């Protein structure tokens, strides 16, 4: 792969801010509902930052404020060290974004759509446009389908074109709202690979997703939102260390095992033959002995660092219903 797109550090207006995204007291009301509540995000330059939260927790609204599409009711945004929206013209050309899914002109082809978006800014860089479009299409695997009308694209192809648009220029920061939504497994893996590659070249990636396994594989940092508030923020290691270890038991007699764990003072959740419980102060040795003494057949018994999913549920609660 050539490097037309991947060297943000060579970009003439490179800024040396140590926070790629910084907000303070960021607040937005929709009517009476406080959708974003005094958000203080801090995204270190060079990180791959996962932005998590249940449906309706305010992620997309936050991203729209970051990019100057919504005016905050209170608070400030700085992107690459520059105030938004005051310095949008300087900062935004260095930022690629995918917001709430892709959007293109159905009557234009993929190539024409990219041409249209690229030509609509103040710094046209016309001489390199064709090459940049081809490279971006190549990166998302759309070279062959580039002349199809957008109308005829499948969900995953649309998503890929949206990503290509975010990659049209050398970027210092990518803000991607659910980039792998609707993609096939190969596509998802390619995107993961792409994100790692971009990050290795020094691009900061801010990524919102519900695919926790994805996030766990690529992210170095995390923030978790719940009902408009930031409930956690930090490096992946810090956050997972802060959540206590979990006990997982595989057994053929789930009911009996649950009863014994409950009697030991543990709160359990069960999925098929696997029981999970936050171990807390209880000694796992004692639990294991009681299970065996109680005649429960144990197939697997482990105490491990919680998965990101465990952490996420611990931070945002079990409830399935959206908060508001």
């Amino acid at each position, binding site marked *: 792969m050539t490097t037309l797109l991947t060297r943000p550090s060579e970009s003439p207006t490179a800024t040396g801010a140590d926070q790629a995204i910084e907000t303070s007291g960021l607040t937005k009301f929709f009517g009476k509902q406080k959708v974003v509540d005094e958000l203080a995000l801090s995204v270190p330059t060079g990180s791959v930052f996962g932005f998590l939260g249940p449906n309706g927790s305010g992620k997309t609204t936050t991203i*729209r404020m970051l*990019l*100057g*599409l*919504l*005016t905050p009711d209170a608070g400030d945004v700085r992107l690459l060290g520059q105030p938004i929206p005051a310095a*949008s*013209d300087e900062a*935004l*050309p260095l*930022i690629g*974004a995918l*917001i*709430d*899914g892709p*959007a*293109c*002109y*159905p*009557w*234009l082809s993929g190539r*024409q759509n990219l*041409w*249209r*978006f*690229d*030509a*609509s*800014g*103040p710094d*046209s860089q016309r001489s390199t446009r064709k090459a940049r479009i081809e490279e971006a299409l190549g990166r998302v695997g759309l070279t062959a389908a580039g002349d199809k009308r957008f109308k005829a694209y499948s969900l995953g192809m649309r998503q890929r074109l949206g990503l290509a*648009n975010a990659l049209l220029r050398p970027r210092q920061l990518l803000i991607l709202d659910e980039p792998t939504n609707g993609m096939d497994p190969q596509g998802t893996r390619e995107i993961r690979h792409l994100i790692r590659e971009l990050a290795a070249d020094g691009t900061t990636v801010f990524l919102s997703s519900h695919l926790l396994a994805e996030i766990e594989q690529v992210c170095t940092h995390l923030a978790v939102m719940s009902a408009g508030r930031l409930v956690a923020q930090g490096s992946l290691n810090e956050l997972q260390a802060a959540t206590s270890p979990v006990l997982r038991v595989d057994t053929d007699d789930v009911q009996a095992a649950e009863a014994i764990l409950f009697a030991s003072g543990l709160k359990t959740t069960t999925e098929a033959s696997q029981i999970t419980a936050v171990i807390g102060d209880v000694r796992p040795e004692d639990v294991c002995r009681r299970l065996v003494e109680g005649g429960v057949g144990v197939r697997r018994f482990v105490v491990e660092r919680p998965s990101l999913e465990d952490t996420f549920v611990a931070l945002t609660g079990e409830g399935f219903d959206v908060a508001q």
Partner: protein
Amino acid sequence: MWRNELSTLFRRRRTQAILLTLMLVPIAITLVVRFAGGPEGGDGPSFLSQVTNNGVFAVLAGLTVTLPFFLPMAVAVVAGDTISGEAGLGTLRYLLTRPAGRGRLLASKGATVVVFCLAATAAVAGLVAGVILFPVGRITTLSGDSLPLVSGMLRISLAAFLIGVSLLGLAAIGVFISTITDVPVGAMAGTLAVFILIGVLDALPQTAAIHPWLLTNHWLSYSDLLRTHIQWGGVVRNIGLQGVYVLVFGAAAWARFTSKDILA
């Protein structure tokens, strides 16, 4: 940037269909008059009877027929779609984060709509059809004298241009409404509704006091160019009035769009 805007608009099938329809109107009139026999003596629009005498008038006949409804509808569709269309597709968020700049985007949309208004009235096809089907000769003015072909054609072109200018006030209203809603069909219908309302007010004697301020008040002033001695009063007032509408609604659109929350 606005060249890009123009090509996006004119590459759209809908725009092409509108322009094609508008081009067909003068051709259709010419053909009807040619083969069905023109209205002799004038219970139809006065330009229609002229078509048989002089093909250049096919252009004017076409514009006269389309001015009351076709042209305003075309303008309502294109102007109403400017911002709300981008919002409806969701492309607005990608244009603004490019960043296209809200002021710049609105300005290039406005310029594109102006080009469309002029293109819609250009109606070259009518001229072509007229020239092919009828003898081209001296042009008879409304006053009854005749003019040499070249100066007559110049006057007719100017009249067509003025009709294009007459549409700018409505276009400005359309662009403003387009900044209020994210639903393009709503903006188009709203613009058309305003136009119809203006027509109703214009027809009521009770509202005579505001008639001079209505958008359509001087719309027929282009016919003054076809008198032997051109009367400029109505033409100038028309241009002035359209200018006022463009300024007022352009400013309103700017105020609205530059402060708007983009939720689409």
